[in-house]
């Protein structure tokens, strides 16, 4: 009989909690906020700490890259597990809006942002921006006997064979921005034939958008095609790294933030978003050495970063490319990957 009792106990342990959990009510007080952060851990930890000190609201966060984050938010839409989605390119937030995963929020801070940096209905707003660049390990480049590249066209020269790492557009938002930007510069056909030539010099395509910086850091490759922050940080650490903006121009990312539908701590989420997109949060980007470009024109810029206006940024139509993304990436696999 003792065994039977034990068995019953085990089954209670296994099965009752399944039914016991009711859904929690929305909280009016702003005490804590649960955030899915697609900004890298070190930088978001710094920003969250500054926010906590400023407001006394406790931030609980999970770090997920934009892909897993969106997949997860979609799967959890019946019952949201977080209040805020922080980071990930604005295209993803457009998807989240059209899938009905987020709710709008308007405030003076939203009004202060430029039109490029927000959803007119207030579903999402950008928090910072980053231009694409070539991050160059000068020591590795020298060792390979290659010269400094200055343009996209330069990268196809034979001297860069197996020296370049870039992310794959199958997975990475960075690489998608790169492909779309090149389509704008060269036309879609031109971009495909360019990338097919470039493919001969690519050492490997990484799954993660920040993968190439790892290669550049340790000299596994000489050139990484990626957004700027990691490289600016390497430079500040005294590594032999330089940032090159190719002469044809570059696309830029502008990660955004949204409040999730079904959020329990809506009030705290709103306070967080106001802080992040307001003067204090925008200045914190530079003060805390995130090396992100602020989206608020009046905010400070960290040392060593050229003014954003001085860069030749190639804008692209996010709606068009979101719709055509699958077609373009299939083309990329068929025409670029097969090129030898």
């Amino acid at each position, binding site marked *: 009989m003792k065994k039977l009792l034990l068995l019953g106990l085990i089954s209670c342990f296994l099965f009752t909690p399944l039914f016991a959990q009711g859904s929690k009510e929305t909280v009016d007080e702003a005490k804590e906020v649960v955030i899915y952060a697609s900004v890298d851990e070190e930088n978001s930890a710094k920003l969250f700490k500054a926010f906590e000190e400023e407001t006394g609201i406790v931030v609980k966060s999970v770090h997920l890259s934009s*892909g897993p984050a969106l997949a997860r938010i979609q799967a959890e839409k019946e019952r949201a597990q977080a209040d805020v989605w922080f980071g990930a390119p604005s295209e993803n937030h457009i998807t989240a809006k059209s899938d009905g995963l987020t709710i709008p929020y308007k405030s003076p801070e939203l009004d202060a942002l430029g039109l490029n940096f927000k959803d007119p209905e207030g579903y999402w707003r950008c928090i910072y921006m980053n231009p694409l660049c070539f991050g160059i390990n000068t020591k590795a480049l020298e060792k390979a006997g290659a010269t400094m590249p200055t343009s996209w066209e330069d990268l196809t020269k034979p001297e860069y064979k197996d020296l370049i790492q870039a992310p794959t557009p199958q997975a990475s938002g960075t690489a998608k921005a790169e492909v779309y930007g090149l389509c704008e510069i060269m036309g879609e056909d031109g971009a495909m034939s360019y990338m097919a030539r470039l493919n001969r010099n690519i050492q490997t395509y990484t799954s993660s958008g920040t993968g190439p910086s790892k290669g550049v850091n340790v000299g596994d490759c000489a050139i990484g095609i990626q957004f700027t922050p990691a490289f600016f940080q390497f430079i500040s650490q005294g590594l032999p790294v330089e940032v090159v903006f190719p002469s044809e121009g570059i696309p830029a990312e502008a990660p955004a933030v949204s409040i999730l539908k079904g959020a329990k701590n809506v009030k705290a989420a709103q306070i967080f978003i106001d802080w992040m997109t307001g003067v204090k949060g925008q200045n914190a980007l530079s003060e805390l050495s995130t090396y992100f470009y602020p989206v608020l024109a009046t905010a400070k810029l960290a040392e060593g970063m050229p003014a954003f206006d001085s860069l030749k940024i190639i804008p692209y139509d996010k709606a068009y490319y979101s719709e055509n993304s699958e077609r373009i990436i299939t083309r990329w696999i068929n025409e670029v990957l097969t090129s030898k």
Partner: protein
Amino acid sequence: MPLFNGVTMNVRELKNNFKSTLLLRKDPVLFGTIILIIISLFLFILFPLAKVCIIAFQKDGKFSFLNFQEAFGFWYYRQAFVNSIVVGLLTAFIGTFIGFLFAYSIIRAKIPGKKFFNIIATIPIVSPPFIGALAIIMLFGRNGFVSSFLLKMSNANIYGFKGLLLAQVITFFPVSYITLRGVLESISPTLEDAAMDLGGNRFTIFMRVTLPLAIPGIASSILVLFVESLADFGNPMILAGSEFPILSVQAFLEITGMYNLGKGSALAFVLLIPSVSAYFIQKYWVSKKQYITITGKPTASSNKIVSNRARNILFAICILIAALVLLIYGSIIYGAFAMSWGNDATLTLKHFKYVFEVGFDSLIDTLIIAGISTPISGILGMLIAFLIVRKKFIGRKFIGVVSMLSFAVPGTVIGIGYILAFNNSPFYLTGTLLILLINFIFRYIPVGIQGGVAVLGQIDPSIEEAAEDLGADSNTTFRRITLPLMVPAFFSGLIYAFVRSMTAISAAIFLVSANWNLMTVQIMSQVESGRIGAASAFSVILVIIILISMLIINTILKLKYHTKSSLLSN
């Protein structure tokens, strides 16, 4: 009449099964256990998988094969399928070969340094995913220590097939070693001695006695390695690259990069086919070749079955492999203490300081989760192994197949399936500790089951029958007779499940929450943002924790059961 004969056979078998099932009523504990296990398997393995299947076989709300057609109408995904199978098979065979070599050298040839080799084989198992692959880049890549500094190669390229296979073999051969170690230990050496006394030469004895006796273990090992390699995505994610597509990675990218859950599930679903067939092949093959060697009679070895020359050669090979493992994992320790790996060799503690600032909570969470899920998973695994091998009842095969399934399914699919299944009425589990626990328990029971089945296959049922003749019920027999014999396999399973819970990533990434986070998820985010020092420091701490826990388990074992687990023993 052969057809008719076949039918009567099946009916008779069914009747027997039914009768045995009815007999179970007299044994309410056993009956209840079986029912409970079947319900749990339904709920925590089949239900989430069904949720994913529904999505894979659906397009715009209707039943359809379109996802599959789209996925495999594309040469790139067919290529990924072929690549996965090739790498999986090669990993399974090479890994098992090396694992057997290690096990044979240590158990049978009794080469010196047993403890050292045990530790070597333990390291890859207890290391978090990604980190071995990272070390391989640091050693054999363009600026790698071996390729560039030692061999003076100027354009080494480790990405693609070569690098991936190296990483997979190094990561998985220890799994094979541990399985085969247990098997070789349980083969009584008196059999080999007897063959020698009868005049057989050493090679003949190896081929005709030792090897055939080890076949069930070797088959399990090949199966496990094949399935593990197919489902693994840590190594291919870093080393394969887009030019050598691997199916598990492509399924993950389809879900997380293209936001196409349907097509991603379809790709993952196809991955199930080779995994499940591997299981059945093993089952059919191994069941025909099982030998009983633990008979309850005394055993002692004369220790002469390996010649001195053979012993020296085996020793040299083991040293070489050990050196490679040491090099790979030693470089991670270096990476954790170096200011900047590859650039600045100054020693520093700053990475550790960073880890304790950012990652202390997740460290505690990881320990709690692994600590709770491991013993439950281990006991459940042994119990299921016992039921599958020794008991007859309807649903026996079901339990065997389903419990293996969770192991064969890529973690990404399990993770997504768990969210789909347990974020809705009536099961609200997402964001809780429980969902992580359940996931780990059911994901890692197959390891215990495999070990248990292999050991049970070699224990003569007459020992148990004797106990039952003497009046013990099935519960007492299991506890007093069978379980003690299974203890080494049980603790291998236990430690392995613990290590896996500590290092799991692919499913866990969908299940961690703000309150319950895991160290591996943080290691991955460090690797992704290129902070190799921090990732290495995280990994070193994780490995130290695992090693300490294993020592504790071993000490308890020694004091209480006067036996040792097969990992990290003397």
